[in-house]
């Protein structure tokens, strides 16, 4: 590197965060990708004028640039878009490769509108023309502000993801480990009921019945919680999935309910999508199963259709059942949320929450359109291009 261009001795091991001093001056460490000494001076003068206590290193080649960004931490990169040896935009590429988030501002003699837009698209934070250098300080401030926001956002997202993982892990471990003691309670209260029914007094029979009932219900809840937490843990096996086959499989599992209710289920011709077949079957089974369960006065008539949109398929499961009030359409997707008493309708309120989790893991959405007494139409989307948010399927999953 040419020593002439080091206009200020860089502060040794300075951290890259700009610090505002008492006079309202921010320290700034910049790396200039520039071959004209005069232009370096111009940039530094503009920065100092704009309230920065600026120090700068200069790189003229990609090699110099790479070694400098590895060695030092910079607040901002000011890059001339056209150097003889390399294009300043390549610095964006180098930073990306090195995993560094340092804003790059293009400083250029004449940058066509087209080129400017292209550079921003490729990841430059801004561009400043050499004859408008007074804009530079504001541009730097904005770029650094954006970087801070990006960092905060990323941190918030990571925290959210971590707490979600912790929660899933907790739900899994809790439900898994609860099963064993619960099995003891359930089997032994059942044994008590079987052995001592009518041998104690009436109250004892009733109490034992409560205990058995409670244990069995808790067992079901724990199993449901486990299936719910498993959707996230096991990841997905995405492959070309023929929804016609998937719906047929779901219908087969619902055969008893269909026969008993006299339901007419009419699936349209459905597409082939990228999905986890067994998870998608579970979604159809839960939705069609609900359509049968929450039927109106007549026999259930259920239509299953699919509509192609630009980036996704919209699937619909339409019924002529009891419908859902507008204020409850959000509630129904929450785990263990039930709109009816157990006497009216059985179930723990797990089905739709599992559907929601599965669809969201496939990168889709699920919602319901309904009016009380007018039937319900559950709709969900599956992206045409798969964007899975789960990991690899683990076969050794403890269940």
């Amino acid at each position, binding site marked *: 590197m040419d020593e002439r261009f080091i206009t200020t001795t860089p502060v040794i091991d300075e951290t890259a965060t700009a610090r505002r001093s008492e006079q309202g001056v921010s320290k700034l460490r910049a790396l200039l990708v520039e071959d004209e000494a005069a232009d370096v001076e111009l940039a530094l003068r503009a920065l100092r004028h704009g309230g920065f206590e600026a120090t700068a290193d200069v790189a003229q080649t990609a090699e110099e640039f790479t070694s400098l960004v590895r060695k030092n931490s910079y607040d901002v990169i000011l890059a001339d878009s056209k150097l003889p040896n390399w294009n300043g935009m390549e610095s964006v590429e180098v930073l990306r490769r090195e995993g560094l988030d340092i804003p790059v501002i293009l400083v250029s003699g004449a940058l066509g509108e087209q080129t400017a837009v292209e550079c921003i698209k490729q990841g430059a934070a801004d561009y400043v023309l050499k004859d408008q250098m007074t804009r530079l300080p504001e541009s730097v401030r904005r770029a650094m502000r954006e970087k801070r926001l990006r960092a905060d956002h990323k941190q918030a997202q990571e925290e959210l993801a971590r707490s979600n993982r912790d929660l899933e892990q907790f739900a899994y471990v809790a439900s898994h480990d609860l099963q064993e003691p619960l099995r003891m309670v359930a*089997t032994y209260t059942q044994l008590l009921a079987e052995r001592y029914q009518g041998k104690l007094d009436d109250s004892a029979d009733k109490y034992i019945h409560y205990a058995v009932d409670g244990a069995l219900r808790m*067992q079901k809840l724990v199993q449901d919680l486990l299936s719910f937490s498993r959707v996230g843990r096991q990841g997905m096996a995405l492959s070309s999935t023929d929804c016609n086959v998937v719906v047929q499989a779901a219908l087969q599992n619902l055969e008893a309910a269909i026969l008993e209710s006299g339901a007419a289920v009419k699936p349209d011709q459905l597409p082939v999508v990228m999905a986890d077949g067994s998870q998608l079957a579970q979604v159809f089974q839960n939705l069609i199963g609900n359509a049968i369960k929450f039927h109106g006065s007549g026999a259930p008539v259920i239509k299953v259709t699919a509509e192609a949109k630009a980036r996704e398929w919209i699937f619909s499961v339409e019924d002529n059942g009891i419908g859902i009030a507008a204020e409850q359409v959000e509630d129904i997707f929450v785990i263990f949320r039930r709109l009816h008493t157990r006497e009216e309708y059985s179930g723990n309120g797990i089905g739709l929450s599992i559907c929601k989790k599965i669809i969201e893991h496939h990168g889709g959405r699920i919602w319901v359109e309904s009016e009380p007494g007018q039937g319900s139409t559950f709709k969900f989307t599956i992206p045409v291009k798969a964007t899975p948010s789960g990991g690899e399927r683990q076969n050794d999953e403890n269940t």
Partner: protein
Amino acid sequence: MKTPEILLVDDNPADIDLTSEVLAQCKQRFHVNAVNDGAEAISFLRHQGKYTEAPSPDLVVLDLNLPRRDGRQVLSDIKADPALAKIPVVIFTTSQANSDISRSYELGANCYLRKPGNLTEFVAVVQSMAQFWLGFARLPQREKR
């Protein structure tokens, strides 16, 4: 015909009691022996220590997660010992992990059953197991002692 000998290996006394209860209610008569950990199981099978007078079981019902000597180790000990290898071993456990199921069969388990969570199924599983292995299945003659 002699009464079949069953060895239950389980660290949960509630499960041993329940399994014994169910076996006692079968039409067929069995002698039920029980030990609480893997090391005891091996001593029992090899007639060592306090088990010199113990019978040779016709069927071993083995839990996987056991103190001292793990169920998987007990299983592999049994199948590696020519004197014991012919005894059918039924794995009877709460685990339904695929890894446990495959590993057990790899180690020579004769059957893998999951302990059901409710009494009706538990009774059905234990009774069918006993009926199948000690009723229908033809087993090698018990070792003379």
